[in-house]
């Protein structure tokens, strides 16, 4: 596939295939209420089955969780509203075209490949989630080994490989069909999440807030008696829930969606979706683990087993569908990013198959999906800072006397200032995460600020 074609497809996959390389015309703009519907099913995905129980497993108190998620989600919505929407409405460009104007087309390719690799790990977690449900009817469940690259049982690994390959082939051959299926499934999935939570409350014999708190605390005691003491406090929950989608808001990925907005009120669009997916669904999923601990004493956050215990076959179908409909576009987008690595003569699906294989390999290691709380923070730390560069370019370039959209105006295909402003803070952030054990979500905002300041400094130096 030709490189230009790949770029167009990457853009198309993120922008709905329209006005990829031009501002959205006035006639195609939508009112802010359209964005409420557009985002409604966006944040209720397979990952929610995994993330919710991890809060309990990490030792978060229910009061902290209820209030922390509330504040974190409000902060995330405010970030969309006041950071992303004004730039999107003003420029009306996709993230990729905006970035190409600032960074140059070759650096955008580097960004795409990094994005693609991260997408693969996310898809890998989705494959693990789906496989956990596929294994239930066959009596195959998975255990999470302590070693990050440790395997579960051979039977579970075989299921992961089969599920991963099927997903990769479907993503390569029938992306649109699965995308339509995902739209049909979204309202049903949200209701099933709620039903799972209610069923878990029934299993715990909860009849008041006090009994719920007592059951939750007992659950934490059991987890900590096995795993040792852990703490996931209020502010950690706030920061995590604020920044788990940092790539979309701080990283400006949602410029591609909000550029269709008539005005900045479109930034309120994710509010319903966030509270359904990152509040209701997480809390309901965490109740399922609390119920499982009460019923069996088992502390493993196995989405398939949890959903089976809560709502039976509906739960199994929901986990498979949730994992599949999330993994499918993720593998597809990662594949398009990888396609630029293949020669022009290569088959158009080569990138998607490669992405599917990487995701499948990642899915074989269940500990990776068990580290999802860390991974989404890492994802934001790596991709978020590029949004800082866009922010500076939009608001400060003219005021501070350096060139706005530098690569576009100077005919550059690789703006080294952007690379340094992006890579240096991210490298430092990764050092603190991996060497000093800093919780990854904590690194997102410092890296974003550092990238913004560094870009200003480098552009001023370049000018002088």
């Amino acid at each position: 596939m030709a490189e230009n074609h790949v770029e167009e497809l990457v853009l198309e996959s993120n922008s709905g295939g329209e006005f990829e390389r031009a501002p959205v015309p006035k006639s195609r703009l939508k009112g802010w209420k359209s964005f409420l519907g557009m985002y409604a099913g966006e944040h209720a995905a397979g990952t929610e089955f995994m993330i919710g129980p991890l809060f309990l497993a990490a030792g978060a108190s229910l009061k902290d969780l209820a209030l922390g998620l509330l504040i974190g989600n409000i902060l995330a919505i405010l970030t969309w509203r006041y950071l992303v929407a004004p730039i999107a409405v003003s420029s009306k460009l996709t993230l990729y075209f905006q970035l190409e104007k600032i960074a140059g087309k070759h650096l955008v390719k580097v960004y795409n490949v990094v994005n693609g690799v991260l997408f693969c790990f996310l898809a890998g977690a989705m494959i693990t989630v789906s496989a956990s449900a596929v294994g239930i009817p066959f009596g195959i469940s998975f255990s999470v080994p302590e070693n990050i690259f440790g395997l579960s049982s051979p039977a579970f690994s075989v299921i992961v490989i089969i599920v991963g390959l099927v997903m990769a082939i479907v993503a390569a051959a029938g992306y649109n069909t699965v995308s339509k299926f995902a739209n049909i499934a979204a309202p049903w999935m949200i209701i099933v999440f709620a039903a799972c939570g209610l069923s878990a409350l029934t299993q715990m014999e909860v009849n008041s807030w006090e009994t719920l708190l007592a059951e939750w605390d007992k659950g934490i005691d059991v987890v900590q008696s096995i795993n040792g003491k852990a703490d996931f406090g209020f502010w950690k929950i706030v920061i995590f829930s604020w920044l788990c989608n940092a790539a979309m808001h701080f990283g400006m990925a949602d410029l591609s969606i909000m550029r269709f907005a008539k005005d900045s009120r479109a930034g309120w669009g994710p509010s319903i979706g966030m509270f359904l997916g990152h509040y209701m669904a997480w809390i309901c999923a965490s109740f399922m683990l609390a119920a499982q601990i009460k019923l069996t004493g088992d502390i493993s956050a196995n989405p398939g087993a949890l959903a089976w215990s809560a709502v039976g076959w509906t739960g199994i179908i929901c986990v498979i569908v949730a994992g599949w409909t999330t993994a499918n576009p993720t593998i597809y987008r990662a594949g398009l990013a990888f396609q630029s690595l293949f020669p022009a003569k290569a088959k158009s699906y080569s990138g998607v198959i490669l992405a599917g294989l990487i995701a499948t390999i990642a899915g074989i290691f269940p500990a990776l999906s068990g580290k999802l709380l860390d991974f989404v923070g890492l994802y934001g730390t790596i991709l978020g800072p590029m949004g800082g560069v866009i922010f500076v370019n939009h608001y400060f370039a003219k005021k501070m006397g350096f060139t706005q959209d530098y690569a576009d105006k100077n005919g550059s295909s690789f703006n080294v200032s952007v690379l340094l402003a992006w890579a240096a803070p991210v490298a430092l952030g990764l050092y603190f995460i991996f060497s000093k054990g800093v919780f990854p979500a904590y690194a997102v905002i410092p890296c974003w600020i550092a990238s913004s300041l560094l870009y200003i400094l480098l552009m001023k130096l370049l000018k002088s």
Partner: protein
Amino acid sequence: MKILKSISAFSIGVLILLASILSFLGTIEANSVKTLMLVGTILWFIVTPFWMKEE
């Protein structure tokens, strides 16, 4: 179209959500709820594509 939408709403609103609320309140047994939910799920995926495709 209206009838199809009503069936979809019934399938998730009544057979899944209301059934689980009634189970929580102790009115329906857990196993019956699981069966109702499965029926609701099958109904949703049979009926919804017809009207959602049109929209």
